[in-house]
């Protein structure tokens, strides 16, 4: 059986189209990179200054001067370029990155995102997330639909401090896919096996249902 993570990664993969420039956030989003089919030619951007991330290095290729934004050793693909951090975020903030896929803690029905701090806990910092959500042409958030207590992370409004206000274009959870439009939050897919009512039952946010609602394909 597919895990929540598999479901999310498989669905997120569909967001990545041939020819795109994409930034994948640290953590689960980074795992998407390895799953991109070879016939989809994309360039992955790493905000520490690399456009065209390649696979992890072979043992003998490991180079301390070549890491990704998660501080993992990587390689550069053919046609890659290195640049400084100001250029990297000029690229991000200026709307030149087609797609950013980032993790989330909470997403609200108005497209607000919280993914960087929990009051009362040690705040480690937002890194590049705030720039990415305000800069990338399209922001897709991936996260589990409910927390470990079964509570909805898809909120009527975020309870955690925001990373960005009305910045999410699409939310992919292990149960559903939502779009954020001028007319509000719209359920566009459910996970195979779940009904719209099932989604309503685990979702705090108000949403409408897309007329073309399709079943969400599970990675099988």
């Amino acid at each position: 059986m597919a895990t929540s993570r598999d479901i999310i990664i498989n669905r997120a993969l569909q967001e990545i189209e041939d020819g795109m420039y994409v930034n994948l956030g640290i953590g689960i989003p980074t795992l998407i990179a390895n799953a991109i089919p070879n016939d989809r030619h994309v360039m992955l951007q790493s905000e520490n200054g690399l456009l065209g991330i390649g696979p992890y290095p072979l043992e003998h290729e490991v180079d301390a001067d070549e890491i990704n934004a998660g501080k993992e050793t990587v390689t550069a693909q053919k046609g890659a370029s290195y640049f400084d951090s100001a250029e990297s975020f000029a690229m991000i903030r200026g709307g030149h990155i087609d797609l950013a896929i980032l993790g989330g803690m909470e997403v609200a029905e108005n497209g607000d995102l919280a993914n960087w701090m929990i009051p009362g806990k040690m705040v480690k910092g937002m890194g590049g997330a705030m720039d990415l959500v305000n800069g990338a042409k399209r922001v897709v958030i991936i996260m589990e639909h409910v927390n470990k207590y079964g509570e909805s992370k898809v909120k009527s409004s975020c309870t955690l401090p925001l990373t960005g206000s009305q910045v999410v274009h699409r939310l992919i959870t292990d149960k559903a896919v939502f779009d954020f439009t001028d007319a509000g939050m719209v359920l566009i897919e459910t996970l195979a096996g779940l009904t719209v009512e099932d989604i309503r039952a685990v979702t705090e946010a108000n949403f409408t249902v897309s007329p073309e609602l399709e079943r969400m394909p599970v990675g099988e």
Partner: protein
Amino acid sequence: MQQGKIYDSFTEATADIFDGATLVVGGFGLCGIPEKSIAALQEQGVKELTVVSNNCGVDDFGLGILLQSRQIKKMVSSYVGENKTFEQQYLSGEIEVDLVPQGTLAERIRAGGAGIPGFYTPTGVGTPIAEGKEQKQFDGKTYLLEEGIVGDFALVKAWKADKLGNLVFRKTSRNFNPLVATAGKVTIVEVEELVEVGELDPNEIHTPAVYVQRIIVGTDYEKRIERRTVREA
């Protein structure tokens, strides 16, 4: 020009860094950090530093060693999560931290070096970062005013320098270093290799010599790796 830019020792190159100084420091994580200059500062013992740097090293390497010796009063960073010493000092109130989104931090350093005292960015609008900041609308969208950063000293790690101070960086160890190089009243650059004037292609210089006041050659770079990830052959 200033052929006199080349220093023989890190001790000498960092000797006048004073208590309470603001340092702007290159590097991302442990990649491309001026590790020898940082070590020299620990030896030198300067106190009450304000350090502007994307991260704060790990407990026993990079800027983390200056935390251990309690030389840092305040960090201006986008992410400080790799460091337990930091966490302890932060929770006990020993150290101040100013968290700045990474792109805003990069742009503030670049702006400081470029004589731009302030600029507007969409980053942080509607978040805790916006508190106390001036906001302004452009074309109906809201932006935050952020200010340029200039340090008393900039600490930079480059791959190669020529004897005039033209710099070339290597792969992703470039990161914040070229911006940092522009944002110090005194810019101190440590390099792996010093070459003769004319050996670097003028078309491929990342940082022109005008930004560099001091050059020192480092040896035996540790270049510690934070997350060694490899694939099978």
